[in-house]
């Protein structure tokens, strides 16, 4: 005899994560949390982070500001600390050496940004075409930015070596100039470009990645509509690709500008600021004042000036970026 009754399956519902957490919470703790408002619980969770932030960011910043008005030197703990007011700020802003290093920094930032943005966008545009083997080449292009700047600085020092360095031999091969007849790191004219070249080699892939994200975010239907309207590729690029990718490009420029404004490691390894002071960027000057001359008060003032400069410029730039995004 066949049983026509529908079969029934009894399933025990799996407790959700929240329910499991509630079960695991000791009763006393659960009771006290239950009495808290949502805002209080939110504060409870973010307090450790805020404390950490205060300890490692805000407190040093306030202390640095305070030190910048004194003659304090970290290597002379027994010397009396005298309040010097705005003297350090005045000295820094009227020092020809500081202005020289700021100009070196500005030239370095502008040159690297222009090169990296153009190259990065071009590479992203090529990779976006999804040609055969593009995945492999993307990985190859990304390799330099995965290396440590210390490693990059050291091996480019060898590459640039005029007698045994590969770079000079490659230039010699293509131009016929004897390899030992020029020196990338020791020449006043060439050394800034030597650093720009290494920085661009390392960080163009980073700009490329951000631009690629921008290009991939443009919906295909816009191009399809343009095709229907018989817009040329050139016009599509200027009226669709570039404007829609612009916020991403501007973001990449912002990141690279901030990074290169405080560039230290690679310049230090490649030239140490030389020859003479040709490549002495602001961060190298700051390091010398703070940790070699031990003028802690003076270098604190210098650090504050650099911080305000970067912060101010970045804010102006972010406002411009928001305007572009809003269009």
């Amino acid at each position, binding site marked *: 005899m066949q049983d026509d009754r529908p079969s029934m399956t009894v399933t025990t519902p799996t407790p959700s994560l929240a329910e499991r957490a509630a079960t695991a919470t000791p009763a006393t703790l659960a009771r006290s949390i239950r009495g808290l408002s949502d805002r209080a619980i939110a504060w409870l969770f973010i307090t450790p982070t805020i404390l950490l932030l205060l300890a490692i960011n805000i407190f040093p910043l306030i202390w640095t500001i305070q030190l910048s008005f004194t003659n304090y030197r970290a290597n*002379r703990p027994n010397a009396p600390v005298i309040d010097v007011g705005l003297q350090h700020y005045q000295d820094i802003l009227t020092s020809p050496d500081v202005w020289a290093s700021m100009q070196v920094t500005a030239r370095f930032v502008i040159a690297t940004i222009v090169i990296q943005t153009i190259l990065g966008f071009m590479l992203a545009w090529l990779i976006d075409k999804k040609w055969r083997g593009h995945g492999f080449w993307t990985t190859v292009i990304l390799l330099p930015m995965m290396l440590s700047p210390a490693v990059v600085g050291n091996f480019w020092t060898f590459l640039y070596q005029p007698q045994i360095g590969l770079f000079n031999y490659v230039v010699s091969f293509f131009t016929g100039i004897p390899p030992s007849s020029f*020196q990338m790191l020791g020449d006043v004219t060439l050394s800034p470009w030597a650093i720009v070249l290494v920085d661009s080699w390392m960080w163009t892939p980073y700009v490329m990645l951000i631009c690629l994200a921008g290009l991939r975010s443009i919906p295909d239907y816009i191009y399809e509509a343009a095709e229907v309207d018989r817009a040329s590729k050139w016009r599509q690029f200027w009226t669709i690709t570039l404007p829609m990718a612009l916020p991403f490009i501007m973001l990449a420029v912002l990141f690279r500008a901030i990074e290169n404004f405080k560039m230290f490691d690679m310049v230090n390894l490649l030239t140490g600021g030389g020859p003479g*002071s040709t490549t002495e960027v602001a961060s190298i000057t700051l390091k010398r004042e703070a940790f*070699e001359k*031990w003028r802690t008060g003076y270098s604190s003032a210098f650090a504050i000036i650099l911080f305000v400069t970067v912060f101010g410029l970045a804010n102006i730039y972010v406002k411009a970026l928001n305007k572009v995004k809003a269009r």
Partner: protein
Amino acid sequence: MNKIATALAALGVSLALTGQASAQGKTITLCWAAWDPANALVELSKDFTAKTGVNMKFEFVPWPNYADRMLNELNSKGKLCDLLIGDSQWIGGSAENGHYIKLNDFFAKEGIKIDDFMPATVTGYAEWPKGTPNYWALPAMGDALGWTYRKDWFADAKNQADFKAKYNRDLAVPKSQTELKQIAEFFQGREIGGKKVYGAAIFTERGSEGITMGVNNALYPFGFDYQDPKKPYAMEGFVNGPGAVAGLEFYKSLFKCCTPPGYTNAYMQEGLDAFKSGQVAMMMNWFAFFPGLHKDPNVGGDKIGFFVNPGEGSRKGSQLGGQGISVVSYSPNRNESLQYIKWFASPDVQKKWWALGGYTCHKSVLNDPGFPKTAPFAADFLVAMGEVKDFWAEPSYAPLLLAMQKRIHDYVVADQGTAKGALDALIADWTKVFKEDGKVK
């Protein structure tokens, strides 16, 4: 009475034994630069451990990072080093900031006579303020900036003939800075053994102290002085006098005419590399490296010669190198560290120190009539140490040094401005530092 004396003697012996026992098994750390003499010191210190039971640990830092690393250690009152062989220029700062312990009482108690050491090394490595009997270190490693040359290239008949035809004198160790440059010019670009060689390896390093040490070897013989001997910190006419300007111009011309390609940021190691690889006819470097170079299988032995930094006219001068050994005031092992100093100061240990490749400063070794023949560079070392000059050893030595590094590198390597302009700017920088220190008004 006898019983009391016996009891006191027994107590004394037991206390002495207890002291010995407490030292046994302890470990002290000695900090220095990583270079050839440091290896000799490791070897030498085995005798100290065998004698006292105190183990030795060593912290050696490469020269380019040595000052940064060790001064940071001292400034942070670190306990890494019990003993520190610190550079001569650190003595002022280390004494005034309380990093080193003063050794006068210890010397007096242990019968260590500072007069047993060569006067230049006592002034350079141990005294602060200079010229006063306040000792913060025991002279440990005498050193000066000298020269090596390729004896085999100098002796070569063709080189001799060509040189004589050009300069009308034998190709020999230079007697003046001018002769040194002529020899460097002669070898620059010359083919030797089918290879292009260069004149001289000199110091041009920007980051630490390289170009300052190098240029001083030219400035001193040409007439540079740090200050008016009669009026401390008065630098006008001494730092930028005609002799100093000529010396700086000379160093730049030597750099431009006669160094290997790419030699714009070179210090001791780059010099050693250039010399050992047979690239240069002459090399400026510290005497400390000469024992190792003499033993080098490729360029050592009969192929290498040594000479003291040549004078110019009647003036002579070599840059002082070398270091004294100090006890770090933050060390928890002060007694054992002092024990090491006492042991190290003994004439027998100093004799062995020289034999192993360290440069003793002890007169008992240096004044021995046989000393000049103990090594091919021994006689030159004595001469050089008799005419050394040192950079400022003020507590503010670092800003003073960095200012000179910048001004000299800007002029010599980066081709900016004039020699007079560079030295004038240097006086302005130094005056600013001394003003901040309250040394000048």
